[in-house]
């Protein structure tokens, strides 16, 4: 099939960007979207044009490296699918495909379709963990976890940190990403001791970088792992509690 690509090209963080148009011929519908870009890049190199920079690694929808806005849809037209798992059979001959990087103030463009998602690491750093120094862990089966709880925690833990939720959100909010990690850890018995500290720290770090959630629900639809916005409600609930409890704990310490 033949396509017209309009791709965001930006030489570096400090440069202006612009959409470049490329006519792409004989693409196989069996190619993955990224393989299509590989082919385009090979041809660009032949024409002495620098290849399009985009992030990818596992190409199995698990590492969260890939991600681009395809015709105004994060990760493209296929629901619950990361860009690397998208195949060209989702498009048809003659299509015009617009490819843009994630857009958010805290996702500055590094080059072409590559953005810096470092702010996600800052959020995890603030409290997205359970503090168990190596070696201090009790026997694994000491604390049974109801299967249901483990399963829901897993649904949240499935987040791959791709950033599509932020890219999709009209407010550039990172609520779904943060709620996913908060919920994963807050739901498990092992996560209880740090629960309130974690929630307050993570939410407030999130707010240093991202917008606020007005419940558009776009993030959930964009999420390659279909993480539910119910977790956002859960995080909101825990945040309110955290605010009170953390004061009390602090005052108890005197």
């Amino acid at each position, binding site marked *: 099939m033949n396509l017209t690509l309009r791709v965001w090209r930006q030489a570096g963080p400090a440069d202006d960007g*612009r*959409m470049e148009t490329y006519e792409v011929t004989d693409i196989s519908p069996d190619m993955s979207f990224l393989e299509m870009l590989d082919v385009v890049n090979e041809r660009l190199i032949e024409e002495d044009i620098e290849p399009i920079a985009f992030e990818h690694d596992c190409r199995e929808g698990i590492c969260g490296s890939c991600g681009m806005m395809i015709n105004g849809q994060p990760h493209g037209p296929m629901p619950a699918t990361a860009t690397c798992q998208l195949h060209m059979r989702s498009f048809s001959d003659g299509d015009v495909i617009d490819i843009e990087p994630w857009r958010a103030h805290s996702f500055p463009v590094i080059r072409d379709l590559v953005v810096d998602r470092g702010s996600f690491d800052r959020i995890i750093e603030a409290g997205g963990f359970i503090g168990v120094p190596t070696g201090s862990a009790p026997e694994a089966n000491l604390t049974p976890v109801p299967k249901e709880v483990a399963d829901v925690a897993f649904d949240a833990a499935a987040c791959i940190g791709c950033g599509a939720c932020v890219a999709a959100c009209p*407010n550039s909010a990172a609520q779904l990403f943060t709620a996913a990690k908060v919920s994963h850890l807050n739901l498990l018995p092992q996560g209880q001791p740090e629960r309130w500290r974690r929630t307050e720290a993570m939410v407030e770090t999130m707010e240093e970088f991202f917008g606020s959630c007005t419940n558009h629900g776009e993030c959930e639809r964009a999420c390659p792992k279909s993480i539910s916005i119910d977790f956002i409600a859960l995080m909101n609930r825990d945040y309110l509690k955290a605010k009170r409890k953390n004061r009390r704990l602090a005052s108890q310490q005197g």
Partner: protein
Amino acid sequence: MPMETQVDQPAARAPVVPRTRRRSRNWLVDLYASAVGKKYVMAITGIVLIGYVFAHMVGNLKVYMGAEDMNHYGEWLRTLATPAVPRTVGLWGMRIVLAASFVFHVHAAYGLTRINQAARAGGYLHARDYAAANFASRTMRWTGVIVGLFVIFHLMDLTWGNANPDFVRGLPYENLVASFERTPVAFAYIVANLALGLHLYHGTWSMFQSLGWNHPRFNHLRRWFAAGFALLITLGNVSFPIAVMAGIVE
């Protein structure tokens, strides 16, 4: 879909500066300083406001029962909670709560809007193809403002009377009819209440998320509740001006 080639994304190029905020010893103040906290305030004040709008709409249905009942209702409002409290005190109490909610609601809305605008980086050149966000959710700010302006006009029209030449204190029924007989005013009411309907359609559902009220058993009902409620309020409120113009109420 229009498509310029040269566009500038200044926001995208500005270095990432974390938003810092004042800390307060009072946890409520501190909560309000956070966006999640602001949403709590929006939701709670929102509940007060929708509660009022609902009661108010129901009360106004009395116009269909004629001047007697309606005016009696107006009077009843003033004697609210008497004899426990002196005449009009109850009403004033209600007014204060309403006014406060309104102010906080608007203030929080303003704050959030600012935060969100700062968080965005230009837009996408290819129009976003929304999968979940709807017209209502994306226009909250504007429908909100419309409703806000309307309320002010509405007060001048039917409470203080300075926007209503033949206003007679204490005769809401006559005032109302007189007001709606002016076609532009009637239309203003209709438009404002359609805006309110949209605002409520998203707001009443959004509220639950903001407050963290979600439970697998009733989650699927939240949308229906919001839609039903918004529809009810809109139909009710829009019916009044139409009824007057159609001469059903005169």
